[in-house]
C-alpha cells in the first residue's frame, strides 16, 4: 500500500508535466487523454523497478518521453481502442492571450523532429544541459549542438514569415 501511495503522490506532484508532454505530442484532446493514461500506466508498470539511481523527475521525464514517442506510432496503426475507460481532465489556461501564444509555440515545436522536440521541451522545463543529457541519453555536447541548431531553425522560420 505504501508503494501505491508514493506513486499516487508522484503523479499528483507532476501532473502538469504529463499534460505538457501530451499536448506537445498530440493534435487532438482525445489523443492527448489517451497518451496521458498510457504515460500513467507505463510509470506505474515501471515504478516497482525504479531504483532511485536517478532523480524521480528525471526518470519520469524519460518514461513520459519514451511513451510519447513509441505509443503514438503504434496506436496510429492499431486504430480504435476498445474497452478503454475514457477519462477526461480539463486543464485550462485562463489567460486567453497566453493560450494564443502557447498554441503558436506548440505549433512551432511540433514541427521539429522527435529528438529536438524532446530536447526543447526539457529546456523549456528549465532543465540544465547535463540533466537533458541524462534524460535523453545524448552527450552534453550533442545536446548543446542540437539546441543551438534548433534555435537557428526557429529563428529562420521566424524570418521566413
Amino acid at each position, binding site marked *: 500500500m505504501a508503494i501505491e501511495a508514493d506513486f499516487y503522490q508522484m503523479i499528483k506532484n507532476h501532473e502538469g508535466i504529463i499534460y505538457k508532454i501530451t499536448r506537445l505530442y498530440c493534435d487532438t484532446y482525445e489523443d492527448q487523454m489517451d497518451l496521458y493514461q498510457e504515460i500513467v500506466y507505463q510509470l506505474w508498470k515501471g515504478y516497482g*523497478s525504479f531504483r532511485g539511481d536517478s532523480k524521480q523527475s528525471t526518470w519520469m521525464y524519460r518514461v513520459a518521453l519514451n511513451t510519447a*514517442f513509441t505509443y503514438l*506510432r503504434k496506436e496510429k496503426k492499431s486504430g480504435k481502442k476498445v474497452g*478503454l475507460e475514457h477519462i477526461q481532465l480539463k*486543464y485550462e489556461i485562463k489567460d486567453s492571450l497566453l493560450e494564443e501564444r502557447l498554441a503558436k509555440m506548440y505549433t512551432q515545436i511540433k514541427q521539429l523532429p522527435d529528438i529536438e522536440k524532446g530536447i526543447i521541451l526539457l529546456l523549456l522545463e528549465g532543465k540544465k544541459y547535463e540533466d537533458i543529457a541524462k534524460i535523453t541519453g545524448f552527450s552534453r555536447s550533442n545536446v548543446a549542438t542540437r539546441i543551438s541548431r534548433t534555435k537557428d531553425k526557429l*529563428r529562420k522560420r521566424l524570418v521566413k514569415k
Partner: protein
Amino acid sequence: MELEEMQAAWTAMSSELEQQKLITNDLIMKMTQSRYKNHWNKIALPDKVFSVISFITVIALLLNFKQLDTLPLQICGLISIPILIILPIFSIKTIRDLQQLNITQHTYKETMEAYAKSKKRFVNFQKINMAMSFVFMIVSIPVLLKFLKGENLFETLNMRFIYALPVCFLLFFLMLRYITRINSSMLKNSEKILEEIKE
C-alpha cells in the same frame, strides 16, 4: 517565436497548471487498471489465435500423416510442418520485440534506436514470412485435398487446379505489392530515426 519568448510562455503555463490539481487517486487507479486490461487483450488475442491454429494443424497433420501415401504428398506434408511451427514463433517474437521495448529503463535515445531497429527486424521478418507463406500456400493445397477429399492431386491433376494456380499467384503478387509498399515506408521511417540519432 524565438526560444526566449517560448520560455516565458512556458513558465507562465507551468505556473497556471501548478494551481490546477485535477488528478485524484481514484482517477490514477482507473487509468492503470483500464490500460492493464487493454494491453493484456492486445497481446493475447491475435498472436495466440494464430499460434494455436498453426499448432493444432501440425498435430492434425502428424496424426494423419499416414494418409499421405505417395512421395510427393509426403514431401508437401514435410514442408508444411516446419513452416507451421516456425511462422507463429517468428511472428510472436517480432511482435513481442516491438511491444517489449523497455520504456521505463531506457533513455530517449536508446528507446528510439531500439524502436527503429525492431521495426527493421519486423520488415525483414515480413519478407521471410511472405516467402514461407507462398511456399505453404503451394504445398498445403495437395495435402488439404488429400485430407478433405481423399484426392491425390498429383495423380488426378484436374482443370480446377490448373485454373486455381494462376489465381493464387495473382493474389500472392497483389499481397506482396501491398506489403512491400507498407514495408518500404516503415523502413524509410526507421532509417530516418536512426539518421536523426546519429546527427
